[in-house]
Every structure is written in C-alpha cells, then in structure tokens.
C-alpha cells in the first residue's frame, strides 16, 4: 500500500511579539508552504502564536553528545563571563 511520502519539518513558534521562536514539535508536509499551513492548523489552534518558522528536519545540523566535552566543557572555567562573578559593594550591587 502507498505509504506517506511527505517530508518531516520542525516547527518553531513565536508566541508573542518580543519573544524568541521556540521549538514546539514537528509535522509532515509536501513543502515549506504546506508545512507553514499545517503548523498553523496543528500548533496554533489556541492562538499560541504570532509567527511561525518551519525548517526541514534533515537540514538541521545538531551537535553530537560525543562532542559535548570539547564543545561545552571549556566554558565551565570561565565564570568571569557571568555577572554573578563580580562582587560589588551593596550600594551599587543592582548594576
């Protein structure tokens, strides 16, 4: 029997103006146009969004867990990039 031959798309939705697009899930569609429409129908039935991005799942390049040590651990010893690293006197600490 004929199986579905649609492509897999990932869906990102901006829930309100001023917020980032957030990944919400995936769906199947023929192309970007149809994916946008289905994203509207499937993921914004309760007015969850003001803007939608769709991207082919196969176009996403993801970091691998095996790489995570070399990717992310080097940041662990750079606490000076965080605001909390700097102790300021109380009167000016709300900087």
């Amino acid at each position, binding site marked *: 029997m*004929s*199986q579905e031959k649609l492509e897999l798309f990932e869906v990102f939705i901006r829930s309100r103006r001023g917020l980032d697009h957030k990944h919400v899930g995936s769906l199947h569609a*023929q192309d970007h146009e149809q994916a946008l429409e289905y994203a509207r129908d499937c993921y914004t039935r309760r007015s969850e969004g003001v803007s939608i991005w769709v991207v082919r799942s196969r176009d996403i390049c993801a970091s691998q867990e095996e790489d995570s040590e070399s990717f992310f651990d080097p940041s662990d010893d750079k606490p000076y990039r965080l605001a909390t690293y700097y102790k300021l006197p109380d009167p000016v600490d709300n900087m």
Partner: protein
Amino acid sequence: MKTSADEQELERRFQQRIEDEQKIEPKDWMPAAYRKNLIRQISQHAHSEVIGMQPEGNFLTRAPSLRRKAVLLSKIQDEAGHGLYLYSAAETLGTPRSELIAALQAGEAKYASIFNYPTQTWGDVGAIGWLVDGAAIVNQISLQRTSYGPYARGMVRICKEESFHQRQGYEIMIALAHGSAEQREMAQDSLNRFYWPALMMFGPHDRESAHSARSMQWKIKRETNDDLRQKFIDQTVPQIAFLGLEHPDSGIRWNEERQHYDHGEIDWNEFYAVINGNGHCNRQRMEHHIRAHEEGAWVRDAIAAHREKRGGRKQQVA
C-alpha cells in the same frame, strides 16, 4: 566500533543521568531496549489518540446542540493533534510515522482497549470525556516527568490542552443528570458502562504488568498502575456524588487508615477478552483506520508526483 566496556560506561552514564532527573534527549546515547520500549509506549499512545477519534466521532454529525457540536469537533480535532505530537516524539527515536502506522494496521502495535467499546448514546460522549479522558489525564500528568525529553514535552502540551476535554464531558453529564428522567437514565447508563473500562485503562495490577518494573527503573513510567488507578478512583467518587448518580461499584468505601477508597475488583476476564479481539468495535476501528488510509493513497501519491513535477520545472527555470 565500540567495545562492550565502552557500552557499559555509556550505560552507566545513561542511568546516572536518569537518577539525576536529567532528561534523555534524541541525540543522546541510550540502551537499545530503552529506545525500543519508548517507541512501543509512545506509538501506542499516539495510536490511541488517533483511534480514539472514532468513538466520539460517531456522534459528531449528531451532537444535540450547535454548541456541543463545536466543542466535540474541537475535542476530536485535538485528539488528532495529540496523535501528531506523539508521533513527532516517537519519530525523534528514528522510526518514521509511516512505519508506526504500518505496525498498527498489521496488528503488531496496540492502542488503548477502551476505544473498542461502542458509543451508543449521547451520554457516552459525556462519559468518555469525563471518565476516559479523566483517566488518561491522571496518567499523562504523571508522564510529564517521564525521562525522555520529547515525550515529556509532548505530555506538557497535551495536558494543557486536555484539561478542557474532561470538563466538557462532565458538563455534558451535569446537563443530563439535571435534565429529564430519560436524560438522567442516559447518564446513569453511560456511567455504568464506562466506569469499569476506565479503571482498566491503567493496565493490569503492578504484580502482573509485563513492562512496569523496567519502565519504572528508566523513569519512563513515574508511578505504578495501581497508584494511578487509586488516584482516579478517589477523585471520581465526589464527582459521581455531585451528579446525584449511583456509584457503579457497590464495594466503594472510604478507608480512614489508608486515606483512600477501597473498591471492588475489576473484571479482568473482560479486560483480556476485549484486548484479545472480543470487544464490540475491535475490527470496526481497525477497518475504519485502514479504509481511510487506503482511500487516501491516491492523494498521497498525487502530492509526491506534484512535488516532483514542480521540482523539475523549478530546475528548468533556473
């Protein structure tokens, strides 16, 4: 090529992550059995949502008021949506949806046996929303903390949307229970027929559940069948009382010591009989699903052909 020592180390780190209440994400290493177990559970959950459209869909064209029709339509549509979220989660484990659906249609994958019961009256639509969705929500709230990230996130989204499903069902029951004598009778009859099957939705007792122990260890399941069922039984007692209907379980008694209701035993023979093909609708549900799928074959083919043609034309232009 990974050695078995590597495997053991990976498995240790995997289990540690689970102990630490960290989520497992799609690209993480995971034991093959964990992956398989998840695909089984998530796809079964997805199939249940999709097959679950049918019993209520049976009343879609007959809903007795326009408001009820709109509510029922949006509820059934949500179920399709929830099926979609769950297939999405299952696909992150590397199995395409078409394979999952093929497994369902071949009878290799299951769906919740509750949907093999027929809907005979409008009261059944109320009882399904109230009791069947109610039981499902108890389970799904617990699954929001499941160890696999995409499944947990899907559950959060589904729980948020499902809160209206149970309420609309109970609202139907209130209207019936406060309605004419015939309507009250309809409400009681639906409660009687759907109460016990709803309890069966939590699955066999823990001591007899095939997948429970390992699922708990992997934190795929967070609470046992019996604990979840008790929660549902406890929350349903006052709801039945409020409707002024008779509780279908004559053995229901508050146990002060346990701080829970004691209850009569479920008819497990019926449970297994329905699972094994003796429900009123087992064959009908599957035939419906396969027929719709087959009738859609030429549409799916047309999409593929159109995409190819258009792709060809785009290249010519370029």
